[in-house]
């Protein structure tokens, strides 16, 4: 079924009970991931990372180093996957593409006046087109939270649909910035708007606002994806970003994906972690699972 792409087709979002969500999330966290399941899970996490640098002070040198790491996570250890993508500002897309393109690693670019989104639509469209023309495989846009909180849902919907149009073949990730939406009811509503307006992925946060990718928020968004799949048979991807800096939390995210959406989503085509420091903690856990000993952070490269 093709997407309707008009807000009139948007179903009313179900309410979300925070207490119930917290309880459910606690159950995911009580899953015990051991032995081969842990090793498999950790490698899966690595393969799902969007290795990210989004700072005003980013330099070509910094981006170049990060891109090299994307394809060489820990060369001393055999059979490690590469990360899924690198995530940079539009100005760094061309450079990043020139390094990781040959490794099958995607380049994701933030756009639409990231992180605030406080710019007119023309600017956002130009921003997005620039990134796509420079070789971005994926676009991470932000929604207009101010308009959303003012109740202008049609504005938010139309803006996403317009950005989707200029993405071409690049996959569109829509950042809700859940830390600014405050309630889980709003998170659910914004998820539905993004999905029905054409998002290929929905993403929690920019990483600039706290709280970011809490399990509660991610769970609520996964339920929206589940409901859309049940309605239409179409899969939507999910990307929690910001605050997932350790392997255990990442594994609990995977538990949640498996139990809410199913095994089909346990794939970097459908699930990503937006993170800058997660990779090293996962690497550390992989070494520990193998050798039984924790190594010092000095044995893992900081890029």
């Amino acid at each position, binding site marked *: 079924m093709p997407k309707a792409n008009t807000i009139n087709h948007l179903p009313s979002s*179900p309410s*979300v009970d925070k207490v*119930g969500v917290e309880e459910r999330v606690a159950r995911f966290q009580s899953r015990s991931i051991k032995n081969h399941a842990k090793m498999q*899970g950790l490698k899966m996490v690595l393969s799902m990372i969007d290795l990210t640098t989004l700072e005003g002070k980013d330099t070509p040198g910094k981006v170049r180093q990060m891109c090299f790491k994307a394809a060489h996570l820990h060369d001393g250890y055999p059979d490690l996957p590469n990360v899924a993508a690198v995530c940079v500002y539009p100005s760094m897309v061309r450079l990043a593409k020139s390094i990781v393109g040959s490794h099958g690693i995607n380049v994701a670019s933030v756009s639409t006046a990231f992180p605030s989104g406080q710019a007119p639509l023309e600017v956002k469209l130009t921003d997005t087109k620039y990134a796509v023309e420079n070789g971005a495989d994926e676009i991470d846009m932000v929604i207009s939270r101010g308009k959303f909180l003012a109740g202008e849902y049609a504005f938010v919907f139309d803006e996403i649909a317009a950005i989707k149009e200029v993405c071409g073949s690049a996959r569109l990730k829509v950042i809700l910035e859940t830390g600014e939406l405050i309630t889980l009811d709003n998170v659910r509503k914004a998820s539905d708007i993004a999905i029905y307006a054409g998002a290929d992925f929905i993403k929690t946060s920019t990483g600039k606002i706290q709280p970011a990718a809490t399990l509660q928020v991610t769970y609520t968004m996964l339920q929206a994806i589940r409901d859309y799949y049940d309605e239409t048979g179409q899969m939507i991807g999910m990307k929690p970003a910001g605050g997932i800096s350790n392997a255990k939390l990442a594994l609990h995210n995977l538990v949640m994906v498996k139990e809410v959406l199913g095994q*089909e989503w346990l794939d970097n085509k459908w699930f990503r972690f937006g993170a800058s420091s997660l990779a090293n903690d996962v690497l550390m856990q992989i070494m520990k699972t193998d050798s039984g000993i924790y190594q010092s952070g000095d044995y893992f490269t900081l890029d």
Partner: protein
Amino acid sequence: MSTKNNNWEYAASIEGTGHIQLKEKYGLYINGAWVEPQSKAYFSSINPHNEEHLADVAQANDKDIDRAVKAAEKAHREVWSKTTPAERGKYIFRIARLMQEQAKELAVIESLDSGKPIREARDIDIPLACNHFFYYAGWADKLDYAFPNQKKESIGVAGQIIPWNFPLLMAAWKIAPALATGNTVVLKPAETTSLTALKLAEIIDAAGLPPGVVNIVTGFGDTGAAIVAHPMVSKVAFTGSTAVGKLIQKTIAGTDKKATLELGGKSANIIFDDAPLDQAVEGIINGIFFNQGHVCCAGSRLFVQENIADKVIRKLKHRMQSLQIGNPLDKNTDIGAINSADQLEIINKYIEIGRKEGSEFFQVDCALPNKGYYCPPTLFINVAQSSVLAQEEIFGPVLTIQTFRTVDEVIQKANNSPYGLAAGVWTDKGSKIFNLTSKLKAGVVWANTYNKFDPASPFGGYKESGFGREGGLHGLGAYLK
């Protein structure tokens, strides 16, 4: 770039049993000592997961019960009723602390003996059992504040008979308020789950309670009957089936024995179209599949508003696929073993009836362990109010689903049951909650949650679900005259 590696199953994560201490053979704990049963008979307590023998347990007869009740009567008359309330509280606090120290051992034994998942034993049963002792320890010296301007006295010997679904927790529900109010106790655990009550006897012994204040006797129905019938038992507290509850009523008719009976249930869980649906689905799961459905207040009758029925049932079926069924000691197990072969047979009999009646049937498609007593989570959809499945308590992981259109209709149907223990209401609208909670004839009504327990909250039923309240302030009153 797809990873194509997405078949990810949890590895077994089995809780260790190296730290538990079980004797090969347990006598009766009477008058502060372990004694051989006069019957000389013992029976085996087995692990419902693999049908392996765990320990031999004494089978008490009339003479043993007489001995236990007389010890309790003497302890009440000479010691416990004269112990100062603050001192009683100290003993109960001590029991609570010792239980906490041994929580891990108690959880593992509970899971082994009853078949319940270690996660539930560890996170719910044992902590809640400890909390009951802590809670009632606090009341022991504050009874004058609980019942101002009344001269309350202890009743005497409480005969307490508990079921197999929450063995240690039910022992705590019974013993803690009885001790806080100055009564002495003869308690009989269910025959399939005696072990944690016997461990509790060891804890009570270690806590230095005066001999005879708590006596723990094991056995079958006739042992329980002997407790109820003993003339020196002044108060009967029973949790279990309605059939046995009726027998107890007959036995004590014409005597001055006080009683509280907490019996069966067929509780309605009601989902309105404005409910937070995903959380309601969790509530349905928790309502009926918690402890394999061996819960007297299980939400075993689901009422879903007609316009969302398809959606809710689809979500429910999907959610059921992620339930992990199997070895109760696996930390990831959500659904453990049915408590006994007998209970499994009862459940299967009902499933057979349901299939013959022809309402839509759904079971999770999963591999069950080869040995042991297992039943997959089961739904019967579009069940009629007049179906046996919707009327009788199954006490297993079997949910009946009915639809409704209006509030009045669902209230009528929910109340149209010989039972009245609990109910659940799921809606985003506060006014609807208050409307329903005031009209549902059930002892406990949960709003937007289910199966939540707290020592401070009273619990008990209407109609054939029994009478009297346990827990909270109300639970104290039942042990005072």
